[in-house]
């Protein structure tokens, strides 16, 4: 029965995720042998959007805060990183520090105002704040380059001279990004299982009761919002090293994209959104090579998911596995399998 244990509970999807990460880590080996170097860049892009989608899951999947303005932090992180590298110093660590601190402060301020209201009002305020940043990026040409964006961001290096590696090297940047994503993922797992994280989940379930148990709910929500904003900013900062930064990173379509990715993967799992980002970008890439109307098809797929598989790919995987197991079990050991499936249901909660 040991082979069944692999499929037990939450571990099922989680192991798939680890396999996915491992496979991704081997991606550079196939460059120029199996595929062009475009796919190395593509893998990096998947990781960055995955990180961004994870930041969304922290507040949406674990705290129940529906923010429609995650682009604010992604864009802010991207601009802060790019401007630091262009204007201040060619140092990745300084760029990271400035992006994280700035996003943390801005998230605190946006959170301070937005978390006073709930539900749709919260969603709309976060959207409005993000749009304000979009307007600023668009209009403050001397700092942001306006609609032309920021060009010529230098590639920083990591390591201690003379042993340095340039992040301009796609291999180095890929592994650097992978390391950041893995680090943040495990920190986030730790976070959601910490006393703080458990309170967040209780807030998602019944905010009023948490308040009456003596927890300052707004403070907890705001901290979660700050953590999410900083991770989003980190993703944006990495994005600035990969791609070119213009005001579209702050437009509400960026928020739409990341929310679609997070839901497509499966909210409330942390790894689901990373898989969702990969699936989104992969389908986009695949579809756009056949048709310029890929948004139409992706939209249809997404609508199908919203209606029929709201738990995303992770949920679809679980349901499919359960059906397959049930099919297999209908001939052999029904009781045992039902037990396994039941355990899984509890573990999911």
């Amino acid at each position: 029965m040991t082979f069944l244990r692999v499929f037990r509970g939450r571990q099922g999807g989680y192991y798939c995720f680890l396999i996915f990460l491992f496979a991704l880590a081997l991606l550079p080996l196939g460059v120029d042998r199996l595929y062009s170097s475009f796919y190395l860049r593509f893998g990096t892009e998947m990781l960055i959007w995955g990180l961004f989608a994870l930041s969304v899951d922290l507040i949406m999947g674990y705290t129940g805060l529906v923010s429609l303005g995650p682009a604010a932090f992604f864009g802010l992180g991207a601009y802060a990183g790019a401007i630091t590298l262009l204007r201040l110093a060619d140092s990745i660590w300084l760029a990271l520090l400035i992006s994280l601190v700035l996003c943390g402060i801005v998230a605190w301020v946006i959170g301070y105002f937005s978390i006073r209201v709930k539900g749709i009002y919260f969603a709309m305020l976060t959207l409005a704040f993000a749009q304000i940043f979009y307007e600023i990026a668009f209009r403050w040409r001397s700092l942001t380059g306006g609609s032309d964006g920021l060009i010529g961001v230098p590639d920083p290096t990591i390591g201690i001279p003379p042993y340095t590696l340039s992040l301009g090297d796609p291999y180095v940047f890929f592994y650097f990004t992978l390391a950041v994503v893995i680090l943040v993922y495990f920190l986030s797992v730790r976070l959601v299982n910490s006393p703080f994280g458990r309170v967040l989940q209780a807030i998602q379930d019944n905010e009023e009761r948490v308040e009456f148990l003596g927890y300052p709910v707004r403070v907890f929500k705001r901290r979660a919002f700050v953590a999410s904003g900083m991770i989003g900013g980190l993703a944006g900062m990495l994005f600035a090293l990969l791609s070119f930064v213009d005001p579209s990173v702050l437009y509400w379509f960026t928020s739409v994209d990341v929310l679609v990715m997070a839901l497509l993967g499966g909210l409330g799992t942390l790894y689901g959104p990373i898989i969702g980002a990969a699936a989104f970008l992969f389908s986009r890439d695949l579809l756009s090579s056949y048709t310029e109307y890929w948004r139409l098809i992706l939209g249809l797929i997404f609508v199908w998911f919203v209606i029929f598989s709201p738990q995303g790919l992770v949920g679809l995987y679980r349901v499919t596995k359960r059906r397959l197991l049930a099919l297999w079990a209908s001939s052999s050991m029904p009781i045992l399998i039902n037990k396994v499936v039941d355990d899984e249901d509890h573990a999911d909660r």
Partner: protein
Amino acid sequence: MKTMQTDNAILQVRKLTRSFGRLLAVNNLGFELKSGELKAVIGPNGAGKTTLFNLITGKLSPTSGDIRFQGGSIAGLAPHAIAQRGLARSFQLLNLFPNLSVFENVRVAVQARHRLRSSLFTAADGLKGVQGKTEELLERIGLSSYADHQSSQLSYGDQRSLEIGLALATEPKLLLLDEPTSGMSPLETQQTTQLIGRISKGLAVLLIEHHIEVVMALADTILVMHHGEKIAEGTPQQVSSDSKVQEAYLGGL
């Protein structure tokens, strides 16, 4: 102005008033609760009992008057700040964490008292003392065997016990129970009465209750409200022989 009586009062309500527009839901209400005392608040529907609870626990702010808990004013404080001072409530309608396990429901409540309750990178399941207290509390409310069930899967009566358990888990000095037996079968009512009797030893309790036999079995004192005002207060014997009370109940129901 302190009298002998107020010295060991854990809760003092003075000239408390709350209006909604022209309606006075609670009107110039005053009473005291001693530590260890169980006071039942009774009265016809719409008498202002739940409004009183909402005022004491911070869900509503008083229009005027004062509420003092352990000597300090708590009137108008946020619910979490009041709860932190050691005042817990259960709700008339179920107010649990429906998607969390029974264990996690209680664990989060127990955690509220822990020094590391908002720590970011320690493991919640490893918090010193929290696990043990949670198990102990589940034992007290008789739900140990359902610890791993999702709370929304419990029977109604068990969910009501869990409701009380959540309030109890924060180790309150004063417990407010809002109709803990509402909607229960006679058997469940009896079990809950026993449960309240067990847990209320040494604890100050304010209890809203419609079942008069539950009140008679548990209450040290009774406060009778009608149209937002206090019409009688005293021991069960004193109250049940009060003519105004009989009038309110006969005329008001």
